[in-house]
Structure formats: structure tokens, C-alpha cells
């Protein structure tokens, strides 16, 4: 039921300053409107995915609605934004799929956009209380000369307090319950599964090499629309080699996770069309891929083992189905950290439950988040898009998309080639 999709190139955070999520999202949406002129009138719902950009203007608090209005769609149609951390993009697609399956809507535009360089810095609770006090004093209804001493006092206190802000990107990447950073969790997982630094670096190198090959061969051109003159992902390190990777210092002392073998901080936006089959036929739209909500799942685990969420989710999909991972041709998994993907592979290899293996040859054939970057909510939608295009290009039949989710969850969904 996915008709088509397109994305902006994934840009390393800071490539373009003063970028907003809605602005970035409008480029792929506009491209879809251009490709399918009937889309504008047929679209009857917008599902957005975003996590950290809905604080500042112009993105507001419901990004999907902002995009809907800015794109010039009918204001009567609904729009909502979903948030399930890293899984948001995939969940938004699944949300749309479910709604189409139910028959509530016929043509849903899924927009996942995340501009990580636009994340805000916030004041903590004590600082905020101080600001509130000052505000309260200044609003008191009393003559100026009576208000002045307390006003001066609070103002001085406010000036004296430490002004160091909290970075919301750091808050977002730290688990609120187990108080561990995502990198620390990856370190723990690597230790648990005995994944050495060497193995992670080899994986990272392979990811970079595959992304490089895909870019140079023009394979990724099929899914990218140029954004502000940039037409390819700029996080890929074209001359990456193993020596350089092994020289990097680990993020935590004694750990194995380095900036080289974890995903990058990136800006990116993806737009997908999820359409009722009959409507697509009527409009003469092609069918890129099909998804069924019954072949999708969200699984949970303890937050300390965040990276293994996909294992649970995949097991849930295949537990009420006869097929296994070995029947899947293309697997796209999110490379939040090399350690995490390797742990997932090991888990399936070690536990003989007849779920098959996550074969390295099928996983992320065109590179993954280590090379391209991981704009949190956009990643899920990108994986769906990349997987669908890979199915189309290679003629393979089935694909699987999965992401680990901070907080201890995993999202997984199966895809089938359209026609």
C-alpha cells in the first residue's frame, strides 16, 4: 500500500544552520505532490513523526499539523504526530497502515522529520522556579517603590544562579529510568555479548563501505530529493579505513563504543504515501510495497537492554507465522550502535528457536545509520523507504524493517514487494 516515498539527503548536524523540521519536511512532501498531482486532493490524513523539534517556532507542538497547513492541504483533514522515540518513523507508517486497513482514511501522507541540530537547551527545575518567582514578583499589584526591593532581590538571585542549561539532545539520549546514556547501554550490551572493539569497528567499516558503494553507484539517488543544493548524504566517510577507526578513543573509559562505531547526529526528513489499494488503482498510482499491520509488532524489554528490543519484536511477528527470518530477503535494521546490531545477530544465532538468523549479507545492504546518520524519528521511515526501494530494485519479495527504541522497546514490521 506504500505508493512512493522520498527523503532529503541526511545531513550531518550543523551542515545547514537555522534549519527547522517543518521546512525540511516540506521538500519531500513537495516532491511527492509534484510526482502525483492527484495526491493533494486525495490526501485525507497526515501522520507525522517527530520527537525533539516541537518546542520552538515555527515547528510548534504538533509538527504534522504545521506541515499540513504549510503544504497547502485542506485544513479540514486531521493531522497528528506520534512519538515512540527512535521507533517513531516506523510507528507513524504502521499507524497509517492500520488506519487504511480499518478504512478510516484512504490516502495518508506520512511525514517523519527530525532536525537534531535544532534541538533546544532548557533550564532545569530550580532555574525555572527562580524565573517563575521573578515573574510573579513583577506581576504583583503594588506601587513601584513597594515592589522594588523584592524585585531587586529576586532579580539579583536570578542573575546569581548558575545559568548552565540542560541540552535536550543529552536528555533525550539518556534513559530516564535507568539513568544510563544510550552509549553506556551499548557498552554494556557489547560486554554482555562479548562483542569486541575489533568486531564493532569491522561492522562500522562495512557500513561505511556499503553506503559509499550505494552512493557512488547511484542506488541511493532513487530515494533522495536534493535539499538546498545538496543531493547526497554527507555523513558517509569516503576514505574510512580500519586503522583510523581503531585509533578513536572510546566514549567511556574501558568501553568499546566509539564515535566511529555508533550512529551520527543528523538532520533529515522522509515523506511516504500510504494509500488504499483501490484508490491507488483508480488514480493510476504504482504500488511500491505492501505492509500488513498483523505482520508488525512492538516488543518491550528492560531499558538497560534497549538494543535488544528488536529481538523481542521479531520473535513476536514470527511466533504466529510459519516463516522465519531466513525467508526474508532484505533486512533493514537501525544501526544505533554497531554493538547493538551485532548483539541482535548473536542473539538469533545463539538461541535456536527456529527464528532464523539476521545474516550479515542481508542486513543493511546499502549501509546504515553509522554511515548515513540517525535523525531519531526519521530513521524508521527511511528504513521503510530504503527497504521498499531495495525490494523494487532487486526484485526480492520480502523485507523486514526493525529499530531498537530507547527506553527498552523494539519495533519491527514486514514488507512485501508491490507488483
Amino acid at each position: 500500500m506504500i505508493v512512493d516515498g522520498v527523503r532529503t539527503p541526511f545531513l550531518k548536524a550543523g551542515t545547514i544552520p537555522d534549519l527547522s523540521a517543518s521546512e525540511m519536511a516540506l521538500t519531500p512532501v513537495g516532491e511527492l505532490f509534484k510526482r502525483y498531482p492527484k495526491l493533494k486532493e486525495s490526501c485525507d490524513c497526515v501522520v507525522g513523526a517527530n520527537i525533539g523539534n516541537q518546542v520552538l517556532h515555527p515547528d510548534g507542538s504538533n509538527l504534522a499539523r504545521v506541515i499540513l497547513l504549510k503544504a497547502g492541504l485542506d485544513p479540514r483533514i486531521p493531522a497528528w504526530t506520534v512519538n515512540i522515540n527512535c521507533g517513531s518513523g516506523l510507528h507513524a507508517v504502521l499507524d497509517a497502515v492500520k488506519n487504511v486497513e480499518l478504512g478510516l482514511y484512504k490516502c495518508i501522507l506520512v511525514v517523519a522529520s527530525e532536525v537534531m541540530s535544532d534541538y533546544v537547551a532548557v533550564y532545569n527545575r530550580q532555574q525555572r522556579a527562580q524565573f517563575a518567582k521573578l515573574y510573579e514578583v513583577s506581576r504583583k499589584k503594588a506601587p513601584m517603590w513597594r515592589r522594588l526591593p523584592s524585585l531587586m532581590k529576586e532579580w539579583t538571585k536570578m542573575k546569581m544562579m548558575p545559568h548552565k542549561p540542560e541540552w535536550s539532545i543529552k536528555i533525550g539520549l539518556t534513559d530516564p529510568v535507568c539513568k544510563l546514556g544510550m552509549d553506556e547501554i551499548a557498552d554494556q550490551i557489547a560486554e554482555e555479548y562479548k562483542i569486541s572493539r575489533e568486531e564493532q569497528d569491522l561492522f562500522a567499516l562495512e557500513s561505511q563501505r556499503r553506503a559509499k558503494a550505494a552512493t557512488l553507484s547511484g542506488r541511493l539517488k532513487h530515494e533522495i530529493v536534493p535539499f538546498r543544493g545538496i543531493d547526497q548524504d554527507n555523513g558517509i566517510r569516503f576514505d574510512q579505513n580500519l586503522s583510523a577507526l581503531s585509533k578513536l578513543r572510546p566514549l567511556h573509559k574501558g568501553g568499546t563504543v566509539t564515535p566511529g562505531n555508533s550512529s551520527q547526529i543528523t538532520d533529515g526528513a522522509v515523506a511516504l504515501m500510504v494509500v488504499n489499494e483501490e484508490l491507488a488503482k483508480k488514480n493510476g498510482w504504482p504500488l511500491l510495497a505492501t505492509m500488513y499491520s498483523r505482520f508488525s509488532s512492538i516488543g518491550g524489554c528492560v531499558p538497560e537492554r534497549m538494543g535488544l528490543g528488536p529481538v523481542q519484536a521479531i520473535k513476536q511477528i514470527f511466533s504466529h507465522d510459519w516463516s522465519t527470518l531466513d525467508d526474508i530477503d532484505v533486512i533493514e535494521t537501525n544501526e544505533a550502535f554497531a554493538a547493538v546490531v551485532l548483539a541482535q545477530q548473536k542473539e538469533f544465532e545463539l538461541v535456536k528457536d527456529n527464528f532464523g538468523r539476521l545474516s550479515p549479507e542481508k542486513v543493511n545492504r546499502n549501509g546504515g545509520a553509522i554511515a548515513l546518520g540517525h535523525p531519531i524519528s526519521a530513521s524508521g521511515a527511511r528504513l521503510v523507504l530504503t527497504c521498499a526501494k531495495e525490494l523494487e530494485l532487486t526484485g526480492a519479495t520480502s523485507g523486514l524493517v526493525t529499530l531498537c527504541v530507547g527506553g527498552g522497546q523494539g519495533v519491527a514490521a514486514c514488507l512485501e514487494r508491490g507488483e
Partner: protein
Amino acid sequence: MEDLKLTKWQYRTSIREGLRILSLDCGPEAKQNTLSKQALEELNQVLDVNLTDHPRVMVIRSSKFESFCAGMDVDEIREIVNDPSNLKQLLNRAHEILMKIRQAPYPIIALIAGECLGGGLELAMACHYRFVIDHPKTRLGLPETQLGIIPGFGGTQILPRLVGMQNAIKVIVGGKKLSAKEAKQYGLADSLVDKWEALAIEELDFGTVILDFFLPVKRKVSFLERLPFGKKLVCSMARKATLKATKGVYPAPLLALEAVCASSKSLSRGLNEESDLFVKAANTPEAKNLIDLFFVRKDARKATPLEAKVYPLDVVGVIGAGVMGSTIAYAALTAHNKQVYLHDTYVPSIHKAVRFIEDELAREVKKGKMIKGVAEETRNRLTVGYGETFHSLLSRCDIVIEAIVEDMAEKHKLFTKLEELTRPGAILVSNTSSLLPSEIASVLLHPENFCAMHFFNPAHKMDLVEIAGIKQTNPEIIAKVLNLTRAMGKTPVVLNKECVGLLVNRVMTQYLMQSIFNVSYWPSRPNLWMLDQAFEMCGMMMGPFKTLDLIGFDTGAHVMKMMQAAYPKSLPDLKDFKIADDKSTLGTKTGKGFYIWKNGKPVKPNYEFAKRLDIMPKKKHSLHGEIVAIRETILSKMWLEAMDIYENGIASIDMIDLSLILGGGMMPNRRGVIGRAEH
């Protein structure tokens, strides 16, 4: 110009007025251009004709892009070495002709592309200007000393004048081959041109730009050489270094050095001295032996047991990514267009292998021997896999080279698995040295696709590959493996029969074990470090104890044990000699063995270890005669072993000597272990 009848040259006029192009062309069947007597005579004719009707500019170039001139014809060198009676006359004639180039009233330019070695470089140096094409395949050098002779056409006189004495010594004595960039840096090349400029040079209007091109070139002379006694100092320093490096075994580098030193005299006296020294060098037995070996090696490279058309092996699998595995993979990668799959069970070894290959490629690029794009393309042909499961590429492999631990059970396990996973008809080879190939193949359902292919450590640098089929092996398989070896740029030696240890390891083990045996059972406990020296003085690349340090005692002891089990009669029993007991003393790996090693060099003898093994010499200096006697005993045992190989019909004497020299560095100056005894 019309009445010239040239067979080795093409002489023509360019479209531009006054420019003539003389290109060396030894015919399409010759891979490389060589400077034969005839070519020199014809050059003389051209120069004579030009005296009356001279062009404004003459360009000397080659009709082949890959090879300007690879030097004198080695066949002719062999001829003159075998019959050195009219040698002096020949050299004088050559000097005369080259002098005509120098004294030509019009500028002569050498346009150098590809290999320009020996006589070729001497010809180029006789020209007034050298334009070098900036290409990774361009190499300039004077490698004559490797054949036991010295440059004879004035190379030792002109090069120091062009690049200074110190650099000249590096090239002539050290045998260094310069890339295009280095040549420019040294001042040997007057200008670097790229490929397209070189093609366009024929159309260049020398008439108008002539002044820009032919300004006098300023030569850089190093500070040391400008000092009053600087040149003498340089020479004496170089002499010491050369003596240390060659251990006095090879006379040619020393003679070449002497000739270079003579370059401070006038040109005619220098040339005279050079030809005297050339005659001296050509009369040494070393020259004869080294040239002989050159031909043996050439034959080994040419030999084809099967005439039928052999398809190349495109996908090469290497299992085991230790030092052997990774260097084999690298050697296979550098062969043209081979897809390589490298696998190891342990992640760290794969990691190390990939790093090694990437770093090695980067080094090649840095040195200017490879273009960056080619290095990248080479890297792209490498696929790695690790863990218990193999990559699906294994099923596409045409040949799988096994390079895992020398353990029969492990090998059996691996080969059973490989036969299941590879495609039918894929060749399986084992890089074994101390196990019997047919025993390894006993688990195979199709032993006809199996043979032993033994590389030497480090495989990307060592030239030799031993190939041995087993009884069932299909001859076509051997032919294919031979082709692969050649594509990897190695010299293959095919054994007629299999045996444990193949050729080199059998004699090598004999060498090492006999040395240990003799040192430990000789009542006076001869000085083992002196014995090492004695061997090196007679032409062994490395003494036995140094070799043991390099191999590592754990590996060495393991191999010796297995070889002893296979040849209990010929190899001595060293059961009570516990060499690999102490894990901190394992040779170069731990920095301590028979020597203390620092930065890959032996610094001083390790007395402690010798004491522990109870082979500490009783006297500080053993008698020279005693050491020589022991050396001769050991060499005779090695000769016996080599003759045993020959008498069993495993290989011919030439091949045995060649493999011992290429694989073990055994006395190339004396023409190998058997050759030495015969002559």
C-alpha cells in the same frame, strides 16, 4: 635517412620540422625492450647519419609504454660472462657510441615511460635531457649488482654527476629503483610529464619553445660532498655499510662502489676504471651463478605442464587470517582483477588482516607505486568474514586456500566443511608445510581437486610458491594453480611428487635441527653466534639461530617435532632439547631468543637463554677451524637431504636449488646447496 636499415629502432620525422623520433622497438613478441649489441650498432648508424644531416631535436623513446628499456639483453650478459675475452673491447665500443650522443651538436631527449633499468638508464643518462612520464609503473634503476656485475655503460660515472654521490650509491649499490617522483626529486629527471603530454610531445613545436626547454639544469650537490674530503668520507661510509649488509659475500656491490668513487676523476679515466671493474666483476663465480639462477627462475616462471587452455581463477578464498593468510590475501588482491574472500574464526585476526591490507595499500599509494583509485578498487575486491558461518561468497570461490594452524584434526574438520560449502569443481589447496598433503586430502570426497600450495612468510614479498599435487590430483588443477601463482607475480616450483615439508622446509628443518644438534652435542660447545656468522659469511641469508628466532620457538618446535616424526632417519632426535618451554623467550615475537631483539634487529646475544639450554659456549671464541668444520658438516647433511629429494624424483636439481634460494635464502652466490657442492 632513407638508406638506414634498422631492426631494433624506428626512426622517423615528426610532423614538426626538425624533430626526429627514434624509438626502441624489439618487436611485438618481446615483452620488454632490451639494449642488445645490434641495437647499439644501429644507434651508432643513426648518430652517424645525423652528423651530416642533423635535426634540431631528437627524442629517444620506446614503442612500448610499459618498458623504455629493461637494460642489456641478459642472454648477451651470459654470453660475455661465460666468455670474457673481448669484454673490454665491447665496453669501449659502447662507451664510444654513448659518447657520440653526449657530443651530438643538437639536443637529444630521452622520453622515459615504464621500466628504464640498467643499460636503458645508462642510455637515457647519456642523453642531454630526460623527461620522465609520471606513472606508477615508471621505474628507473641500475640493478646490475643483483646479477653479480656492475653497470658497464658509464652508469657509475654519470649518475653521481647527475644526482650526487650519496644518491647514486643508493641506486647503484643498494639497487634502489626510483619512481618518477623520486627521479625528479633526485634530479635525474629534468621534467615530469604526464601521459597525455608525452603523447603530444611529438607534435610539440620545438622550433619555437626550444629556448624554454633547454636551459642549463642546476644540479643539487649535498653539503657533505662539497667539503674537501667529503666524497672520500661518503665512500668510506658506504663501504662500511655495504660490507655489513653483504657480509663480504657478494663482490659486485663493492666493485660498483669503487667505480662510483672513481667518478670524481675525469670522465675518460672514470669510464676506463669502470670497465676494468666490470671485467673483474664478470669474472667472479658469483656473477656466473647469479646469472645462471636468473635463467633458472625465468624457466620456472615459464613452465606449463599442460598445453590446454586454462581458465583463470577469479574468486579466491583464503581461510585463516593469520600472518600467512593475510599476506596471501594481499598477494592475491594485487593480482589483476581477483575477488578475494578472507575468513577467520577469530575477529581480532580478521581485524588485523584488514588493517594490514589497508595500510599496505595506503603505503603503496604514498610511495607512488599505485594510484589512489587503483588502491580503492583493490580494496573493494576484498570481502571478509568471521565467526563459525561462512559468507555466501565462499560458494562462488574458484579456489580456496587454507592457511590455518598446522593441525591435522583442524584441517580435516575445515576441509570437510569446505567441500560441502564450495561449488562442485572448486579447487581446494592447503598451505601446509609440515603435514602430508594426501593425508589432509583423505577426508575429501573429490581429492582430484586438491593440491598443496605452499607460500613463504611474508607471502606478499617472498617470491616462491611450492606446488605439489597428490596422486589423485587432476593435472588441470595444477595448471590452474600455476596460472594463479604467476598472476600473483610469484615463481612457482612444481613438485613431481608430494612429501612432508615439500622442498624448502625439508632442507630448512635439516639446517636448523642439525645446527642445534651439533651445537649441543659437540663436546667443546662451539659458539653458536659464531656459527651463525660463519653461515652468513658463506652466503646464507640468515644463520640458523637467527632464523629460529624469527620463526618463533613455539612454531619452530612444533614443525621440528612433526618433521622429525616424518623423517626419523635423516633428522636428529632433539627430544631433550626443550626450546619452547619458557613463554617469555620465543624469539622475535617476545623480543628474546638466541638474540635480544630490538626494532626487528638482533642487538646482542642472549647468554641467559643459551645457559638455560645448556649450550653456552665454554670459551668465548671458538676456533675458526672448528666452526668451519661444523658448518661443513651441517651443509653436507643439507646436501644429503636435497639429494634425497632429487633421487626420489620429487624435483630437478635446478628447481631444488632455486626454491632453496628463493624460499630459504640459501647461498645464491654459490648457486644453492647442491650447486655449491657440484662446482
